[in-house]
């Protein structure tokens, strides 16, 4: 590819951030428009790439590659590229980046800083998905910490400083283990390499090293597990979500935690097939725990955003199930679920944000009967909720059922049907908590104290409609994504005979 599309996609938001931060005298209004433009263009390009992506059977796995030598001493390259696994996530992030700007339209506090950090966040997450060099990947992985810290701690709510710090420390601890893992991996390869592509193509097993491969595998996995999150490394998530501003919650749920799932597939599974297969039962157990435990705790939440946050934990359990069932279909399902959860939970957070913004109330027990006062919001919330509980025709169903079908039929790992059945309980519990939430917030008699509450305005309806359209698009025609995802999954599944 002659034209550096990916570089442009990831650095345009950064350029926007720089303009917003450094050009003096921009009005808040202008800043918003600059932010919107600098996120819309990457979105347009990423959609273009999605359309141009070669889905044919013999096509290259990684497309739109860019490779420039960066630090020759350690064989680090500025190496970008997307495959079927990462491309949907890039599109998702570009989309959420743009929508996040729209969602943040009403932010009035320190507008300049806010949008600068938001755009920087987008650059860093996009960078994670397109980096094919471990060092570059890790750099983008870590850059995200600082914008998140500011975004939560300045524009958040509640115990925002605690939550922001907790987020940072958790992420740093995770990052610490990843860094150790990357170094271990680097010195295991011979010749030393940081290229994900090259390492994936080498068989590490015969190499004799001082560090056991399984140890590296677990270092990396533990780091990624923090992000996903895998219980018991999850307690940052409810706090961060609860206290983050709406747009940040959307990005956090939409793509940030997907970095974990993506990295597990891209690095842990692809590079360590043997360890993956050996320890799959353990991880499937964790997946089941994530699903059931997450859902059980969700049922006890009283804060609207916290509830959605815990439901994310449960839903990420499905991703984990899909990954470690290690069949082609389940892995495709995991990819699909990452995308689907991104839009569904993104929408849930967006609309929960509107509810909280308009009612000034976030305690579920104190809300009620809002369907009368905010009918449009009620409809949107219900649709998002249906997606979250995996009702057919939404992307949530398609993704989850693909995971289940793939996982149950997997012959790579023994005992996987049992884990799948346990995870099925998750959708049962999901119905319980979503319906309970809907009932408590929107149904029942209208309350007088919310009579002044306004419904969604035009802008809010527009961005919610985009989410909804995507939820149904992927739900009704999943092949639009699976055709792409499978090209990325095929070589990975081939490692396990799939």
């Amino acid at each position, binding site marked *: 590819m002659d034209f550096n599309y990916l570089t442009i996609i990831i650095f345009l938001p950064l350029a926007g951030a720089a303009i917003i931060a450094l050009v003096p005298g921009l009005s808040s209004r202008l800043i918003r428009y600059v932010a919107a433009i600098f996120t819309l263009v990457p979105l347009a390009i990423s959609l273009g790439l999605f359309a141009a992506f070669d889905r044919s059977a013999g096509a290259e796995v990684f497309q739109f590659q860019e490779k420039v030598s960066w630090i020759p001493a350690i064989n680090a390259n500025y190496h970008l590229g997307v495959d079927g696994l990462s491309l949907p996530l890039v599109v998702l992030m570009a989309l959420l980046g743009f929508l996040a700007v729209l969602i943040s339209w009403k932010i009035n506090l320190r507008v300049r800083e806010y949008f600068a950090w938001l755009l920087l966040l987008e650059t860093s997450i996009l960078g994670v998905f397109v980096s094919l060099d471990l060092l570059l990947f890790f750099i983008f992985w870590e850059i995200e910490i600082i914008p998140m810290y500011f975004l939560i701690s300045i524009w958040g709510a509640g115990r925002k400083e605690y939550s922001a710090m907790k987020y940072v420390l958790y992420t740093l601890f995770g990052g610490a283990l990843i860094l150790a893992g990357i170094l271990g991996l680097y010195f295991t390869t011979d010749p030393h390499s940081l290229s994900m592509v090259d390492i994936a193509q080498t068989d590490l097993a015969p190499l004799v090293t001082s560090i056991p491969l399984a140890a590296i595998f677990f270092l990396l996995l533990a780091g990624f597990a923090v992000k996903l999150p895998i219980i018991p490394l999850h307690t940052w998530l409810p706090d961060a979500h609860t206290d983050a501003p709406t747009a940040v919650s959307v990005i956090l749920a939409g793509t940030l935690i997907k970095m974990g799932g993506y990295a597990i597939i891209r690095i842990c599974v692809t590079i360590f097939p043997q360890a993956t297969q050996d320890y799959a039962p353990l991880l499937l157990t964790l997946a089941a725990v994530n699903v059931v435990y997450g859902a059980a705790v969700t049922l006890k939440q009283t804060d609207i955003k916290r509830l959605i946050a815990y439901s994310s934990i449960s839903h990420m359990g499905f991703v984990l199930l899909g990954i470690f069932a290690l069949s082609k279909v389940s892995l495709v399902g995991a990819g699909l679920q990452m995308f689907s959860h991104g839009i569904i939970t993104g929408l849930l957070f967006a609309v929960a944000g509107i509810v909280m913004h308009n009612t000034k109330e976030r305690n579920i027990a104190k809300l009620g009967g809002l369907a009368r006062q905010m009918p449009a919001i009620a409809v949107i919330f219900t649709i998002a909720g249906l997606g979250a509980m995996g009702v057919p*025709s939404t992307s949530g169903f398609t993704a989850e059922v693909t995971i289940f079908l793939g996982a149950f*039929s997997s012959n790579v790992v023994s005992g996987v049907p049992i884990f799948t059945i346990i995870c099925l309980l998750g959708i049962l519990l999901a119905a319980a908590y979503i319906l309970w939430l809907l009932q408590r917030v929107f149904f*029942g*008699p209208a309350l007088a104290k919310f009579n002044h509450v306004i419904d969604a305005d035009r802008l809010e309806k527009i961005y919610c409609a985009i989410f909804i359209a995507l939820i149904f698009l992927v739900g009704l025609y999943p092949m639009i994504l699976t055709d792409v995802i499978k090209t990325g999954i095929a070589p990975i599944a081939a490692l396990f005979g799939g």
Partner: protein
Amino acid sequence: METVIPNELVWLIFLLPLLSFAVISLILRPFFSNKPRLSGYISISAIFGSFILSIWALTSILSAPSHELAIPDFNWLVIDSAITIHLGLIMDSLTAVMLIVVTLVSLMIQMYSQGYMQGDPSYHRYYAYMSLFTASMLGLVMVDNLLIMFVFWELVGLCSYLLIGFWFHRPAAANAAKKAFIVTRIGDFGFLAAILLLLSKTGTLDIAQLHSLAIAGTLAGTVLTLAAIGIFLGAVGKSAQFPLHVWLPDAMEGPTPVSALIHAATMVAAGVFLVARMFPLFEHSEVALLTVAIIGGLTAIFAATMGLVMTDIKRVLAYSTISQLGYMMLGLGVGGIAIGIFHLFNHAFFKALLFLGAGSVSHATGTFDMRQMGGLRKVMPWTYATFLIASLSIAGIWPLAGFWSKDEILLSSINNQPILFYLAMVTVFMTAFYMFRVVFLTFGGQYRGDNSGSHSARPHESPSVMIMPMVVLAVLAVGSGWLNVTGGFSQFLGGGETRGFFEGLFHGFTHTLPGLPIPLAWISLILAGLGILLAYAIYSARWLSAERITRLFAPLHMLFSRKYWFDELYEHIIARIVLLKGLFAGLKFFDSRGIDGAVNGIARTTVATGRVIRKAQTGQLQLYGMFIILGVVAIILAMYLSG
């Protein structure tokens, strides 16, 4: 209609209502909110179109050699060779029958709703949901792939959720809707598990292929049994069979036409249909078939007992539905597709009629409590007449529709499961009793309602837009059973024998079965008559005092009227105490205090460690010097110790 229906039009059968849903929700509701009647017209036209197409499809199938039409399909989810899910249609006799039932009943109910829902602020929404509901059910009966079927299966559940909770501002409605969805989803859990099992063992979810695998014996043994039971669990949830029956009585909270639709043609019928659709799998697993029969038989009598004592007219009807669904399951379990579906077919008409009648009554009186009714016979003659016909039909009085299908079920069960046969016979008696209890309480005697109320000083007959559909359904409640007098219906569905019309008409009364003193039809007819008589004796003629009987059987009455305490067991003990307050609360505590507590604990420990260690920095420079020397000593010691 000589020609075979074109493929595109077959798709239209379920696409028309879907289109209607889209038009109403995306165009009418946002832009024509002041013209609510439009959505009614659109929805009804759509379903009418589907009905016409369904008839065309039926005739096409009737004339097709193997009673099947081949429809090309589309890829829905294909991932290389690993998984292939097609979106295709299966057009066979079973589908054709179901299409007729669904479109016809739905058409009648939607017409009726124009009157019933008049003036409701959410008229648009109502018809949007109704269209979607019908579309989903039509999709469910037409698709040829188990996974796609599950899609529609869930959509049916979703629509019933939306419709039961239609008046969401009433907490009871919102609760009932939630309950319906969650309870049926417990069943869906089994269904989905069965789908996973089937796919993993056979590699396909195509219904026809699964049939042939089961028939060929490739799919057999434990796998088959497990899969069949899983599918049946789905049916148990949807069709409100014991022990997942609890949601259906509460589903009364929706508008009455919705109840009619749920009870007659959609939602609950889906479970029975599912078992019928997958019948070859059940057929090859004795355990599964027996399970179906036992659950069906038990549910039939179990629900009937509760129907005896309810005071809410719709609740009586609800338990009667559960009971009748039990019959259908029993019919499937002991007799086969033809028998079970035949009862479904007949039941759809008279049960829809009963609900519409109940709706008409409440439209007039503003209540569903039978204790507030009485004497409506005179003011609501049409309603009374149609309701009576339906009651006779459900009680199984010859030659009404209910008689025919019920008799076939009884006939099959006496041959296969004698114990279930006796239970079913008791149920026959109970059914007749509780239905006529309703008839007498509602229409007989004097009006007991509040005359001074503002709602309607005097009860009145419903408008003709509501009466007309009831009359149509009444005709069907009388005559639908005649379709199988000659055995033609069964033949079409692939079972049973043919006889001449008049032979068939009196067949049950002339043939004595071994083990029975007199022909079966006489027995059931006598039992039904006794039930009606008893109801008359208590509630009309008042030869017996209802209060005294209640006191006499106080414990039983308590048991029945408290619904065997199932709601308490499920909602209170299991859901609230064991799960929410027990397990989930425990997990939450563990999460916030255990895991997060540990996290915060580590952080606090680190900080506290710092607080302790910094104390070593006393500001005394000689102590600092001491540390230098101690450091040297420590290093040397460490080197010495480690050699």
